[in-house]
């Protein structure tokens, strides 16, 4: 069926204002927060009712038209990048909190509700929704489910998958399924786990039941400086080994500290090679006891200075620098590229040193601001997309960093998702049998491969092509040939 015929069919069955098809209307949807990748979809459908979503899915399903779902478009891996032959399904108008159940400590929400809006609504009951991706002001809970989003506090409180209880989803045929339940588990296979983080490849989420936790009585931050990244890494390990699970444990290296300091006045110690921000939360009695222990551990690990936030205002100030890190990079460099590998923490120092070597080799500066407690690295590569070839070099360097993460037993993505961005590195992390198994799982949900096709799981063909050019464990496929 032609493009025109599809749009005609959508317009025939949906209100006119719910279907966008002129290029100038499609432009705002051409990318998500990974703006290096852009594609215009055939059309954007912005339904207002569940029935309209069903209709759109049925039209696409019958005509074999790809569907890419989108929440707020804040994703960092191109998961909501449109498909040139498909429609983009925006769930932005599903922005209602349906019900908060303070007794059972859950909230039923529509997918377009922002992450932070849930906590804001739950605050009246002394409850909140724990996962807190840095984009929580804007990002949608539907997108969080699609990506299995994390955040600063997931060391203690887990990822999205640990904090949701049920989903209402539509399959590509428009059939509605309840995944999970209002109880703590559901009969049958744990499809809640399978769908969370499936990047919109298996089904479209139309309602989410999230778990709510009691707001901690108090939260305090210990800020410590170290004269080497290694010492800070040791302090992280020693903290966990001492039996404490901080609510958050973040590391900034010197380039990151300097960048942040130029952006806002953080009061971070300027001479530090690395600083750690360690947040502890709970009852006042618990937090005071933990702070005492953390300070001792940090001292033993060689902290050169330490400060404990005295009040909420000071705690916010300590965090302000960490939260400003990405915008600060934006000021320092025309463009930056944020990586997301996770490694076993014991390899932290080794990996950071090798990232420095790679940075020098590619002549691209890298700042490190990351979730040290759970080994989730966010190296930020600074580059200028206007310099010809620099984006390509950046992507290659990024790929190298991800491969390094896999080499030490880690993963190419801790919380941002594979999307379009890391699709080649999936070939490094998984072998053909594993990738084929993933494709088979998709087949059980979406046999015609219409939901977000081409993302998250590479085809074996793509991996063969990537592998042909790929240097595996330092061995070039054809070492006799010169490569540039």
């Amino acid at each position, binding site marked *: 069926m032609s493009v025109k015929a599809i749009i005609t069919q959508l317009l025939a069955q949906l209100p006119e204002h719910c279907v966008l098809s002129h290029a100038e209307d499609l432009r705002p949807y051409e990318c998500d927060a990974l703006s290096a990748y852009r594609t215009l979809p055939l059309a954007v459908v912005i339904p207002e009712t569940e029935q309209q979503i069903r209709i759109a899915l049925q039209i696409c399903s019958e005509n074999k038209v790809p569907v890419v779902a989108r929440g707020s478009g804040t994703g960092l891996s191109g998961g909501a990048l449109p498909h040139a032959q498909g429609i983009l399904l925006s769930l932005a108008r599903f922005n209602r909190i349906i019900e908060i159940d303070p007794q059972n400590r859950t909230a039923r929400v529509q997918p377009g509700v922002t992450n932070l809006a849930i906590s804001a609504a739950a605050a009246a009951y002394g409850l909140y929704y724990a996962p807190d991706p840095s984009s929580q002001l804007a990002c949608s809970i539907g997108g969080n489910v699609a990506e299995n989003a994390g955040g600063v506090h997931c060391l203690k409180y887990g990822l999205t998958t640990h904090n949701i209880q049920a989903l209402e989803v539509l399959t590509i045929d428009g059939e509605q399924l309840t995944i999970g339940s209002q109880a703590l588990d559901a009969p049958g296979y744990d499809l809640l786990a399978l769908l969370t983080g499936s990047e919109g490849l298996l089904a479209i989420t139309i309602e989410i039941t999230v778990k709510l936790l009691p707001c901690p009585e108090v939260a305090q931050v210990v800020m410590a400086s170290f004269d080497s990244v290694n010492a800070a890494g040791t302090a992280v390990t020693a903290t966990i080994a001492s039996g404490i699970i901080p609510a958050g444990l973040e590391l900034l290296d010197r380039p990151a500290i300097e960048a942040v300091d130029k952006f806002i006045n953080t009061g971070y110690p300027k001479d530090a090679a690395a600083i750690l921000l360690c947040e502890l939360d709970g*009852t006042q009695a618990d937090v005071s006891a933990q702070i005492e222990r953390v300070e001792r551990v940090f001292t033993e690990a060689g902290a050169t200075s330490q400060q404990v936030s005295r009040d909420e205002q000071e705690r916010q100030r300590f965090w302000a620098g960490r939260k400003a890190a990405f915008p600060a990079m934006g000021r320092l460099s025309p463009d930056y590229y944020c990586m997301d590998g996770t490694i076993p923490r014991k390899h932290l120092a080794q990996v950071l040193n090798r990232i420095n070597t790679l940075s020098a080799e590619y002549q691209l500066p890298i700042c490190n601001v990351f979730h040290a407690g759970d080994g989730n690295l966010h190296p930020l590569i600074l580059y200028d997309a206007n310099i010809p070839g620099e984006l390509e070099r950046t992507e290659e360097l990024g790929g190298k960093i991800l491969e390094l993460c896999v080499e030490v037993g880690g993963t190419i993505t801790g919380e941002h998702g594979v999307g379009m961005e890391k699709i080649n590195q999936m070939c490094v992390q998984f072998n053909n049998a594993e990738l084929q198994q993933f494709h088979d799982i998709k087949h059980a949900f979406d046999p015609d491969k219409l939901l977000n096709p081409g993302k998250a799981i590479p085809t074996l063909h793509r991996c063969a092509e990537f592998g042909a050019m790929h240097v595996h464990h330092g061995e070039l496929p054809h070492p006799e040939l010169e490569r540039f």
Partner: protein
Amino acid sequence: MTIQQDLQQQVQSAAASRSPLVICGGNSKSFYGRATSGDTLSLDGHQGIIDYTPSELVVSVRAGTSLSELEAVLEKEGQMLPFEPPHFGNAATLGGCIASGISGPRRPYTGAVRDFVLGVNCINGKGEYLRLGGQVMKNVAGYDLSRTLTGSLGTLAVLLDAHLKVLPLPQLETTLVQHCSAATAVELFNRWAGQPLPLSGACYMDGAMYVRLSGMTEGVQAAVNTLGGELLDDATQFWKQLREQQLPFFSGETPLWRLSVPAATPPLTLDGATLLDWGGAQRWLKTDLAADVVRHCVTAAGGHATLFRGGDRDSAVFQPLQPAMLALHQRLKHRLDPAGIFNPGRMYPEL
């Protein structure tokens, strides 16, 4: 040939001849699920801890490893399996623990088995060796199949190794007892769970509620003062007996149902003896009532019911799935186990 290769070969030949396999660890949970039959695929020889660095909070373990041995190793380093798994016998293995997906009293406050599974290595129905998930805390590469295998009763794949997140043992654990009605207990459990208290267990039976607090000494002491009640002597033994179903409540031949309901659901009006656990979210019911009577009541409350022990093991032990959901389960099973050889019928007759 390695044990892994041997197992792969056994799976391949079973698939070729479409002969069912009964996957077996320590056989401690054979009472659970529906009856199944076939050649035994034993994980007995596949034992040992592969990797354990306590400061990583991650342990990698072979499926045939004794659960008690694993727990002893963790305890020596001041750590634990946070989901407090029931053993149901000395022979219990880690593989069986993950395949059954049964969590203990700590579950509502700390998490379920699946919450701590970071990755698994397994053999699918084609005899292929697959590494799913990983050994790190945060990992969103590929579908999260390792958690889906958790609790699938061996119907999807043969679990070989698991990477688990572990947590430090609490500095102090204390249990408070108060006498009250079941309705009051449910109300208090859920009111307290909405407050920043270090809860780690909450159950009710025979007119008394038992609330366990775990954490730093200071925080637990403060909570004891807030909540009130008598301190329980030998609390460790009490929670262990609850977890292992060794309390007097669990004795006898009457069928034992597990009711999973929204935690704040008021006491259900079903004939039989009830024990509330998980702060009200998991209820044990000993009854001779028909399955549809039990399920009708539990479904109306937003939950589901499992015939946990006893009764007819050829019947619908697990709550029947809606047709579209069952069809999806069948497609998934087929995609992992095309010949349908893994524990056929153990979960549902159609799987």
